[in-house]
C-alpha cells in the first residue's frame, strides 16, 4: 500500500492491521513519533491524518493508506513552526520523549483555536509528560499564540528570587 508521509510517497509492504505508528517508525523509518502506551492514552504517537490530530498507535495502517499524514518531522522544514519556536525559546522539553506528541497536539489546538484560553489548553492537551513540563507547555502555547510575551515568561523562569545569605 502507499503511505503519503510529509509529502513523500512511500510504497510499503505491511500487514493491514499493523498500527500506523509502527509502520511509520519501523517501515517508513521516521522515529520522531513515539510509542508510549499503545492504547491511545498517552499521546506520544500523535500525528496529523488529513489535518486531524490522531493517536497513531490505535489506527491500523490500512486506514491511513493514500491519505495525507504529517508527523513531527513534517510540520516545518527548519524548526520554524511557531510552536517549535516557542518550545525552543522556552526550553520546554526535559527528557523530550513525549514532546513530539505534545507539539503535534499544540499545533492542532492552535489551528483550531488561534487564541486559546487556559480552559481550551486544559481540554486539548491531554498528552502525558512524566517529567512534568506541563506548566511550560501551557506557557509555550500562549507564547506561540502571541498571548504572552516571550521575554516576560523567560524573565519569570530566570528570576530566582534569591535572597542569598
Amino acid at each position: 500500500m502507499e503511505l503519503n508521509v510529509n509529502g513523500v510517497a512511500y510504497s510499503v509492504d505491511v500487514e493491514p492491521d499493523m498500527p500506523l505508528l509502527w509502520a511509520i517508525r519501523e517501515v517508513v523509518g521516521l522515529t520522531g513519533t513515539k510509542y508510549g502506551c499503545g492504547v491511545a492514552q498517552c499521546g506520544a504517537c500523535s500525528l496529523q491524518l488529513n489535518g486531524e490530530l490522531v493517536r497513531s498507535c490505535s489506527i491500523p495502517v490500512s486506514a491511513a493508506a493514500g491519505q495525507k499524514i504529517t508527523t513531527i518531522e513534517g510540520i516545518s522544514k527548519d524548526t520554524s513552526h511557531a510552536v517549535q519556536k516557542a518550545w525552543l525559546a522556552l526550553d520546554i522539553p526535559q527528557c523530550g520523549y513525549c514532546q513530539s506528541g505534545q507539539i503535534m497536539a499544540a499545533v492542532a489546538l492552535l489551528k483550531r483555536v488561534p487564541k486559546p484560553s487556559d480552559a481550551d489548553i486544559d481540554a486539548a492537551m491531554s498528552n502525558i509528560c512524566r517529567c512534568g513540563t506541563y506548566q511550560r507547555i501551557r506557557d509555550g502555547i500562549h507564547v506561540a499564540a502571541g498571548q504572552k510575551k516571550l521575554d516576560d515568561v523567560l524573565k519569570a523562569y530566570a528570576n530566582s528570587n534569591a535572597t542569598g545569605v
Partner: protein
Amino acid sequence: MTNSLKSTRKATSFVASRRKFVLGTAAVGSGLALGFTLPTYAWAEGATPPLKTPDEVDVWVVVKPDDTCVIRFVRSEMGQGTRTGLAQLVAEELECDWSKVTTQAPTAGQNIARNRVWGSMATGGSRGVRESQDYVRRGGAVARMMLLQAAGDLWKVPVAELSVNKGVITHTKTNKKISYGKVADAAAKLNPPDAKSITLKKPQDWKIAGTSVHKLDTADKVNGKKVFAIDLKLPNMLCAAIKQCPVFGGKVVSYDESKIKSMRGVKGVVKVNDATVAVVADTWWRAKNALENLPIDWDLGPNAKVSSSTISSALSEGLEAQGDFWQRKNGDAPAAITSAAKKVEAIYTSTFVAHCTMEPMNCVVKVGADSAFAWVPTQNAEASLAALSEASGVPLGKCDVQTMDLGGGLGRRGGTQDFVHQAVAIAKNFPDTPIKLVWSREEDMTHDYYRPISKAKMSAGLDDKGNLVALSVRVSGQSINAYLAPSAIKNNKDTRQLQGFYAEPGDAQLGYTVPNLLTEYVMRNTHVPVGPWRGVNTNQNGIYMECFIEECAKAAGRDSLEFRRAIMSQHPKHLAVLDAVAKKGDWGKPLPPGMHRGIAQFMGYGSYSAATAEVSVSASGEVKVHRMVFALNSGHFVNPSQVKAQIEGSVAMALSSVFNEDITIENGQVKEQNFTTYPLARLKNIPKVECVLVPSYDFWGGVGEPTICVVGPAVINAIFAATGKLQRELPLRKHGLTLI
C-alpha cells in the same frame, strides 16, 4: 510473604579476580543500589579505544581549531539538565565562549580504560551536579591555565600578563589577542598544573554558572530528530519483545513455538531466563504481535495467592509487632505520650507506585564471538557494562556501553539493569546481530521495581500548652535495600527506609527537635520487586511526618506555621526555607471564599524544601490545586530556570502519585497494565507553581528529587483545612477525592 531475591531480577553483581576497585558509590544512602566491582586492566586490542585525543587539553576539555569547546561528561541525561549544568561549571572555570560549547559522552569502557578519570557515571540520588561539581570545575580551570600557558609561551610573556574573556586571550600590555582554538594544540602538550591546589571562583563571580542558559540538547527534541535507544536503527538489526511471568517468582514451564513460527518476520523464540520468553522478529511490532499469539505455560510459583489485602495485613501486623526496631531514641517517647495532657495518634498508608518512564525499558545489544557492545538508556553506564560482560561471558575489556539519553529515568534505570541481562541473553542466540529489546507498556508497568509500600503509626503527646513533647514514628513496610542491596543494611537497621527522619545533618535530617522521640522501622517484605523512585522514601515519609504534624497543630489549636517554628529553632536551614515559603506563599493572609492553604517542610538529598498549596474542594470531592509555592535551599544553583523546571516536574509526579497512582496485587500479579487503569496526572491537573530559591552557598545539595516530598503534605494539609478531615490513605482517588 518472602524475602524474595530472584536471580534474574537482582542487582548486577560482577566479581573479577584481578585488582578491583568498587564502582557505584551511589549505593550509599538513597541512590542506586549497586554492589559490583570492576577490574582495572590493560587496554585490550579490538575493544573500543580509550578516548584520548591529541586535541584534548585535559580530560574534560577539547578545543577545536574553530574555537568550539567540547566538554565531556559521563553522567546520564534524562531531562534533569545535568549535561548542561556540568558544562556550565566547566565553562565557568574555562572562561570559554558559551555559544561555542558542545558536549561529548565517553563510553563506560573508555572511562574504565582511563582508570575512571571522569569519575562515577552513576546518575541517581540527585547527585549528578553536586557530587561532580568540584572536579569538573577543577578540570575547567586546569584547561584554562594550560591554554594561557601556551599563549604565554608563544608570545614569550609571563602568564600573569594575560587575561581571558570568552575564549580569547589578551596580552594586556600589548593588546595582542589569540583565541583558544589557536593555542589548543600547544596547550595539550603541556604538563597540567596540580588541580587540587587551584582556587575555584566564588559563586558571586560566576558568569555562566548560576545563570539560566538554555539547555544544550533541546533542538533535536522539538523536531523529531532526537534519537533515543528505542529509535536506533542498525544494519541487520532484529527486534525483540518479551513476556515475563505475571507472578514474580514464577517460571516458564513450556511454550509452543510452532504456533507462531510461520508468522511474518518472526526469526525465533528465546527462553531468556527461568521466568522470561522473547520473540525475535524483523520489526518490534511483529515480535510483539507474535508474542501475544505464543502459548506459554507458567508455573506461577509460591506467590500466586498474594494479594494487596494479604500484604496490607502483614504491614498492619508490623505496626504492632514486638521487637528491637528503633533507630532514634531520645528520652522516653511511649511513656511521655502516655502521660501527656493530650495524645494524638494516626495510621497512614501508602501503596506501591510505578515509574512509568515515557520511553519503556529497552536497549540495543550486539554480541560477537569476542566482543560485545550495548547502547543503553541507563542511569549508570558502568553497571550496564558489568551486566553486559557478566551476561555475555565476554571479558570486560572487550565490552563497551554507550549511554543513550533517557526518555525518563526516575530511578528505574540504575542498578538493576534487568533489561541489559535480557537483551544479552537474546543476542547470544543471534551472533553479530544487533538486537533491540523493547518492553511493551504492559511489561513495563507489571515488571517494575516499584516504590515500596508502607504504613506508619504516628503517636504524639502534647503538654497543656499545646507543645509537642513526645513523638513516636513506626514505619512498617518493604525495604529497598533488602531487595537490591542487602549489604547496605548495617546492624540489622535499615536506615534508608526512614529517610527524612535522620538525626545527622547534611542528607535527610528531621527538622524538628522533640524532647522524647522514637523512630522505628519494621521490615515487612513482599515478593514484589522494589527500587528507588524519584524522591524514594522521602515521598511517603514526608507525608507521614508533615501531615501528622498538621494533625498535632490542629489538636493543639495552634497555627500550622507557628507550631512548626516552635520546634525548629535548632534547625535554622529547615526554618529558613519554611519562613521563605510562608512569606512568598502569603501564609496567614486571607484567601477568596472556598480556597484553603496548607504548608509543609522536609529534607532529602542534601537540600531543604518547603511548600504551600492553595486548594478548593467541591462537595463531590473534586480537588483543584490552584497555586503552589516552593522554597528550596540546595546550597548552590547552577541554572535557576532548570532548577525551577525540576521543581515543576516534581509537582506533576507527586500530585499524580498522591491522587491517582496505585499498583495493586491480585493472585500474586500486578493488576494495572496500562494508563487506562493507572492514570497519571495531566496538564489540566497542574497548579501554577512559583519558586523562591534561597541558596546559602555553604554546601551543595541535590535538585532533581528534594521538593517532591513536600508537594503531597502541603496539598493534603490544604485539603484538611478545607474539609476538616486529614486524608491518611493514598491514593486519594480511592478515598473519594478526585484531582481535577
